[in-house]
């Protein structure tokens, strides 16, 4: 039996102040390729649905997090790059830094904490940024992740929601697996909503929008990306083994969907389902389609009734149609492979095991 009171006691400890307007948005390197609809949807929801101000900055670069976590560049370099992003933010007149990527969020958090503990490092980086670019910077007043923002605005979204995370036929809440990216709060538990052990950020959205969270044993386990584990082909067996452990653990709960807040996690949780199916013939749902994996922006978009194909859901390996059907979402299946109204994309090759 899980005592909710116990979790609430922990959550009280990890309350995070989240600004409700004027966001400086730094896009992710890889999300734009993996899930091109997600970041757009985030901006769309904030600007169009909720009337917030958000700057979609185009001059920022990578935070170099992937290189940092693959041990190929020194920390000072990463810090200087991050300092430049802050300087861009200051120049635009913003104070609330919102990086789309979880790893970036982790990097920024880590660097800000380092500077807090070691002001001499911050001074050094200021010098280096000045020498390299002639720029100056101030630290952001708030550093929040877009999932924090959506979490904070979840009830505002609910007010405009067209669909709930509820099985339209039975009226039962959907069983949702929340997977929070490792770099969100595992390094600095007090920087995440709800801490590291029982994070609240995605759970809050799911519960607000009608779903039920599944607490399965390997909830804390990494999606399997692990940077070096995937980047080096010889190590990919470890990467997928980790993912498989997660799926084996969540399978008995029969989840309807997985929600994530990290660029890599939805990718690996989605694509590895295909690879596991191809290698072992194993599919984790009874219907043979696999468990749909969504970003929180996509989930918000669905709740708000956005066109799934404009959300980019056709980019998912595991079909989302069963999920859409479950919540009674009205959509045109023929639109799936259309761009705009005209061109029909080449139909992708069907996988060997997974149903589509």
């Amino acid at each position, binding site marked *: 039996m899980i005592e909710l009171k116990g979790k609430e006691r922990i959550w009280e400890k990890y309350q995070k102040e989240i600004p409700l307007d004027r966001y400086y948005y730094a896009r992710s390197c890889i999300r734009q390729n993996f899930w091109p609809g997600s970041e757009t949807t985030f901006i769309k929801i904030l600007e169009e649905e909720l009337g917030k101000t958000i700057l979609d900055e185009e001059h920022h670069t990578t935070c170099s997090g992937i290189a940092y976590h693959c041990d190929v560049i020194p920390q000072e370099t990463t810090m200087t790059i991050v300092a430049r992003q802050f300087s861009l933010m200051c120049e635009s007149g913003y104070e609330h830094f919102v990086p789309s990527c979880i790893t970036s969020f982790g990097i920024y958090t880590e660097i800000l904490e380092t500077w807090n503990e070691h002001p001499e490092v911050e001074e050094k980086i200021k010098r280096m940024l000045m020498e390299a670019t002639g720029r100056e910077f101030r630290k952001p007043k708030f550093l929040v992740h877009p999932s924090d923002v959506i979490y904070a605005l979840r009830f505002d979204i609910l007010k405009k929601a067209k669909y709930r995370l509820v099985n339209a036929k039975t009226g039962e809440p959907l069983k949702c697996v929340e997977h929070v990216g490792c770099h969100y709060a595992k390094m600095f538990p007090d920087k995440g909503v709800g801490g590291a052990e*029982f994070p609240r950020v995605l759970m809050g959205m799911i519960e607000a929008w009608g779903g039920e969270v599944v607490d399965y044993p390997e909830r804390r386990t990494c999606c399997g990306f692990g940077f070096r584990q995937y980047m080096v082909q010889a190590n990919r067996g470890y990467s997928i083994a980790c993912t498989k452990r997660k799926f084996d653990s969540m399978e008995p709960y029969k989840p309807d969907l997985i929600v994530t807040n990290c660029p890599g996690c939805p990718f690996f949780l989605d694509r590895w389902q295909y690879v596991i199916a191809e290698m072992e013939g194993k599919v984790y749902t009874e219907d043979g389609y696999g468990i749909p994996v969504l970003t929180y922006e996509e989930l918000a978009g669905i709740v708000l009734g956005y066109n799934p194909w404009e959300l980019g859901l056709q980019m998912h390996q595991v079909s989302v149609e069963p999920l859409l059907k479950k919540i009674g979402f009205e959509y045109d299946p023929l639109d799936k492979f259309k761009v705009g109204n005209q061109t029909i994309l080449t139909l992708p090759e069907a996988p060997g095991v997974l149903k589509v």
Partner: protein
Amino acid sequence: MEETKKHVLIVGAGIAGLEAATHLEELGYKVSIIEKQQVTGGHVKNWFKTFPYFDASEAIINFAERSLSKFDVYNETQLTYAERNDNGFKVNTDKNKQFQADAILLTPGFKVFDAHKKEEYGYGIFQHVITNADLEKYFRNGWPERDNKNLRFGFIHCVGSRDAKSGNLYCSKVCCATAVKQAIEVRQHFPDSEVYCFYMDLRMFGKNYEEMFQAAQEKHGINFVRARLSEVNQNFDNTLLIKVEDTLTSRPMKLTLDYIVLMSGMEPAENAAQLSQIFGVPTDESGFFAPEKYLVSENNTVSEGVFVAGTATGPKTITETINDARSAALAIHHYLSHSRIPTEHGKE
């Protein structure tokens, strides 16, 4: 004659305070104890049996309270203020009871580490994650209804001890022996159960502790795994799943358990910091009272006339606490009869 008796005020009526009071009273002093709880006896009153001989805690309490009627005990009273005057100390409490004391003995004891702090262990979240203190209550008051068959217990050593993440670098000393004792008791209470102890080191330092450990292995079939728990999760069937590294085979390992018992360590008492401030007794980095001189003069403090004893100066077993209390009584006696043991501080 009564008025001429010198007065010793003891703060805390656990076994240390009671034992010191007994001896001070016999030495001819007037003794008063203030205790913040409703009853005397401290933590030991909540325990069931003691290690390594499995004597009932009642026996310890009965012993410690053998002279209870001979001195004044003020329950549910907390010390709020004290000042030094020509006759010793003037002390006030939250109930406005005032004392004039010639010497003060601080025996506030310890606080059981709050296992909630180890979030990943799920105390307060998973129903069957309990602490050693809870387990003692179960033994005393009976188990909550439970299917008694084939239960699997896991004892997690060093919860809140030897753990930088909990802020406590010290060893709480008694938990290893307590875990072995409780594991044996569990096996006796649930003969079909399976019991695992997950330890960092097994510190069986006292007489007959190692023998108790060996009996736990051989007679009671308790499994000892050298491992430190990383996290607790719940399975689909509501059983608990733990993940550890089996350090001796160098493999990650998982195991399903029905009960997890966290061996919460000792921390300084809640009012230790306040007492430290009131009486000018410094504490060490862990928050325990610092004696005047380590190793050789652990009952005296740098604050003249203020003495310390029991677990307030660091984790101790029952035996050590009782001996420490007697030692403190003697130190106070020397002080009050002006034949203080010459110490560096005391040379006048």
